[in-house]
């Protein structure tokens, strides 16, 4: 089980702006899902979407669904006024997709060629090229934890009982 306590200092240090991260992932999956459905033959061999190129339309629909779930989660939070378990579970599928995309990017870095079989290409070139999707995948769960700081007691304690004098909560 992930030791959430170990991530608390990281959350405190990073002070991630979690909404932009979540919005970026939501828009990414919306556009990626749409392009997989509408133009599968032209977009399915993008590095981040290569794992879904077997059944691009189905995976595109799943991606769109995850994007809509994330949107619903954000809307739910807006309506209720705080992050709840519903928003958390609504954002999880998006995170899974991000990790699959990041894993795919890492795979092609190791393989030294692009998903379109373009190559061999310097692994460092592909790594730097694909860095945004990997960074997004890494930052998304941290942003998710920070967004739900009032549910996860460790990260909440991190925010409310800060050494510097109990500042106003900054999990927005």
């Amino acid at each position, binding site marked *: 089980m*992930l030791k959430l306590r170990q991530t608390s200092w990281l959350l405190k240090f990073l002070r991630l702006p979690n909404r932009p991260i979540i919005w970026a992932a939501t828009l990414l999956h919306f556009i990626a899902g749409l392009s997989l459905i509408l133009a599968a033959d032209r977009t399915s061999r993008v590095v981040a979407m290569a794992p879904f190129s077997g059944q691009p339309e189905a995976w595109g629909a799943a991606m769109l669904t995850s994007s809509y779930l994330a949107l619903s989660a954000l809307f739910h939070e807006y309506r209720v006024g705080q992050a709840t378990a519903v928003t958390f579970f609504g954002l999880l599928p998006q*995170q899974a997709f991000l990790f*699959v995309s990041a894993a795919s990017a890492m795979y092609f870095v190791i393989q030294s060629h692009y998903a379109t079989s373009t190559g061999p290409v310097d692994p460092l070139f592909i790594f730097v090229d694909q860095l945004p999707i990997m960074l997004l995948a890494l930052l998304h769960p941290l942003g998710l934890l920070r967004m739900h700081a009032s549910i996860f007691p460790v990260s909440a304690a991190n925010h*409310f009982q800060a050494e510097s004098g109990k500042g106003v909560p900054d999990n927005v």
Partner: protein
Amino acid sequence: MSNDVESKPSEGRFIRIEAAIDKLVDDVAEFRVDVATRLTRLETVAVTADKVQVTKVSDRTYFWMRVGIVASIFIGIGSFVASIYLG
């Protein structure tokens, strides 16, 4: 005589220094009260915000939330391992 004459200014100087120290102590005390007041206000804000913001979930939900976040990461790692072995 000469001692008395010399002692007067130094005495006055001591008095001035004492007065300055007293004023400094007063200033520090005032500053501490001010800081304490501000901290108390901050604490009040934090506690109020805490009450507003804290979301209670059941133990079971909390368990599944933790499982979910770990599972979503392992899905990615699993797909990576599968890509390596399956090509």
